[in-house]
């Protein structure tokens, strides 16, 4: 029997390299910057673009774990409520319980993590329930608890230094941008360079085969939902710092923005596909788009419409592609 030599080197395919969704995002990003620049003569300098990131980066922290969740083929719509709950608990710990702010911040992260852990455990223990229905109900519960704690009050009066998180600079670069960059690198490495990330992709593509291959699917799913909770806690920190006070209705509608960013970033809602770099680009696409429209005094409501439409359109485009691809595949397996 002839022995076949199988190549183990990847060939570089120029066409494939440029035929990627991320380039599309880069293009959109450039267009948005050109438009923004034409709207405001002061826009196109390094400093103002950098400063613009402060206005939208708070929710970007959740985008990173949400990419993992959607790659799994699941969804988490409780993240905004988690932000609200952790933020409210932090404020109350500091203002009403008299705990030191540092401890209150830790509590904020712990609460977020716990919320995520509860989601993860419910989803893995009750496999009959989809992530949609579980996170839908915890979304109501978490925000409900925030309302129980603070009713319709606001809680502010944080120490002076706390505002540094949201508004401070390190060497001319916003602190929030630095922290985000660090998290982005961590999540990017986790997804693309570790066994954990590989297994996440495997689960998103074929969860049964992953189970048969010894992947601890329940454990990984729980970890990912917990991560989503933790990062919601991080968002709560920055958001609260930026606003200087918090209310139970804080971060309302964030789940839409976050999911829109992930999906626009090329992560398929049917799971198994997408990259962190795409979601990061799309954070900037949506963020700068928002900022630009703000320059033009477009009302906030218009933004709701635009983001909603963006989400729907972003899902529709790959769906069209996948449909033809699926038909092809079906044909193949059937034939």
């Amino acid at each position, binding site marked *: 029997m002839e022995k076949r030599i*199988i190549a183990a080197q990847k060939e570089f395919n120029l066409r494939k390299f440029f035929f990627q969704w991320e380039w599309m995002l880069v293009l959109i990003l450039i267009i948005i910057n050109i438009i923004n620049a034409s709207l405001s003569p002061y826009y196109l300098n390094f400093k103002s673009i950098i400063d613009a990131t402060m206005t939208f980066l708070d929710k970007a922290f959740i985008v990173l774990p949400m990419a993992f969740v959607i790659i799994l083929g699941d969804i988490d719509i409780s993240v905004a409520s988690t932000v609200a709950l952790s933020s409210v608990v932090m404020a109350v710990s500091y203002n009403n319980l008299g705990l030191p702010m540092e401890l209150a911040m830790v509590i904020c992260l712990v609460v977020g993590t716990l919320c995520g852990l509860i989601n993860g455990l419910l989803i893995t223990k009750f496999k009959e329930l989809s992530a949609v229905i579980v996170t839908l109900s915890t979304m109501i519960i978490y925000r409900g608890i925030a309302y129980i704690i603070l009713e319709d009050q606001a809680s502010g009066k944080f120490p002076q230094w706390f505002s540094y998180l949201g508004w401070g600079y390190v060497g001319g670069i916003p602190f929030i941008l630095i922290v985000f960059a660090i998290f982005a690198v961590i999540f990017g490495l986790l997804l693309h360079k570790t*066994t954990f990330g590989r297994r996440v992709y495997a689960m998103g593509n074929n969860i049964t085969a992953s189970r*048969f291959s010894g*992947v601890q699917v329940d454990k990984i799913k729980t970890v990912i939902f917990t991560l989503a909770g933790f990062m919601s806690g991080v968002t709560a920190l920055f958001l609260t710092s930026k606003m200087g006070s918090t209310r139970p209705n804080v971060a309302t509608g964030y789940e839409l923005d976050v999911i829109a960013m992930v999906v626009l970033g090329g992560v398929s809602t049917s799971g198994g596909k997408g990259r962190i770099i795409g979601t990061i680009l799309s954070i900037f696409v949506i963020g700068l788009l928002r900022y630009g429209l703000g320059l033009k005094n477009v009302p906030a409501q218009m933004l709701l419409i635009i983001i909603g439409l963006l989400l729907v359109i972003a899902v529709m485009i790959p769906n069209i592609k996948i449909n033809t691809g699926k038909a092809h595949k079906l044909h193949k397996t059937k034939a």
Partner: protein
Amino acid sequence: MSEYVLELKSISKSFPGVKALDNVQFNLKSGEIHALVGENGAGKSTFIKIITGVHHQDEGEIYLNGQQVEIRDPNEAQKMGIAAIYQHVTCYPDLSVTENIFMGHEKIKRFSKRILWEEMHSEAKKLLDNLGADIDPRSQMGALSVAQQQIVEIAKALSLNAKIIIMDEPTAALTKKESEELYRITEQLRDNGASIIFISHRLEDMYRLASRVSVLRDGKYIGTWNVNEISKEDLIVAMVGREITQLFPKKEAKIGEELLRIEGLGKTGFFADISFTLHKGEILGLTGLIGAGRSEVCQAIFGIMPYDKGKVYLEGKEVKINNPLDAMKLGIGYLPEDRQKQGLVLQWEISKNITLSTLDKLCNKGWLNASREAEVAKELSEKVNVKANSVFDTVSSLSGGNQQKVIVAKLLNADLKVIILDEPTKGVDVGAKSAIHEIMSDLACQGYGIIMISSEMPEVLGMSDRIIVMREGRITAVFDREDATQEAILEAAMVNRAERELAGVR
């Protein structure tokens, strides 16, 4: 007018890599029960799917009452009066029995389009009564037993005025009593003028019911006999056919000490009282009909579905396996039956698939090592001779046999002692088949213990050192290589135990 209500001539159908049907003939007389038998994978399912319009034949003609017809989709088949009752019933579990019977052809008032529930219920009741079944047409389909659901499916066929009824393994999930009931109904249908194609693994079904029997083997038509003219033994020979024509590359492996011992394993509703041992260098064949619980036993050992009774010993020590990871850490690997759903990530390249279950071994503290992965994948896929150009080819582009080799390579990468292969050569072309057999032999020589689940008789006989036969969740026979014959195995797998004991007494 033709003597036959249905006649199929020279039907051929190919799927990539497999010729599922090769020049098959078949005819059905009016008012007869015609049994269609053959081993798993003989092409029976494909054959009936062509009659019911699910697949379309590549070659050949179909005649209905002497007229040539084209059956393009299931709806057309339905209109021609052909109905099929499948083993896994395709019903609406949430809807009522009546609705399941009348879905797609409800009775409605002409102008108001109102559904005439009362009339449908009473008609359903009448249909069910005629079948002698005491089923309330208003009850929910999902609340019925499998046997009752099948009767409802039959009632549906009747409500469609089906003249040709195909029953695909209807007795597989039924108890003896329920089967008896089904026989009675089938005979009644025949007496009322329907023609029935009855597919079954159980020879007792066939002898009880059919007047003629056709045998398929490896997608080929073997012959048709009147049931009273052919003995059980001859029939089995016809089904199994070939004196083992393939040469199996079985090498003599040294059978060493005990590796795995299973004692009294059981799981409610799936299997019970399973005990066996596996030794180093041994290939243990596990055979029986589909649904006998073979895969379930092995999946329990592998930690996919937990068992609720019994013990598992590995190298003399009792072990508790909660999930596949535990199993693999202990050195037990499993090659699943459904390679596309359970074995592979089809969208992925070969190398990632091979390394998925052994990532921890190839990584550095959790960091992927792409070049090492590619090297290992190259080495392994060359070892099992995967036909691909690069380890970065996607698995979905490979043929069935090569996909299977990829899964074998995946197992080889793990440090295993026990390898369980579930239908390793199902749907695989001849070349790849013997390659997989060769790999299996080599593994046994290297001291692995191998459990091979297979429905294919020559493979079981040709490869195994010992053979375990299961039927309906229990072990019915164990043979040594020297003592095993096709007939004995088939009998243990197919014939009811009580009946066998009776025959023994006689």
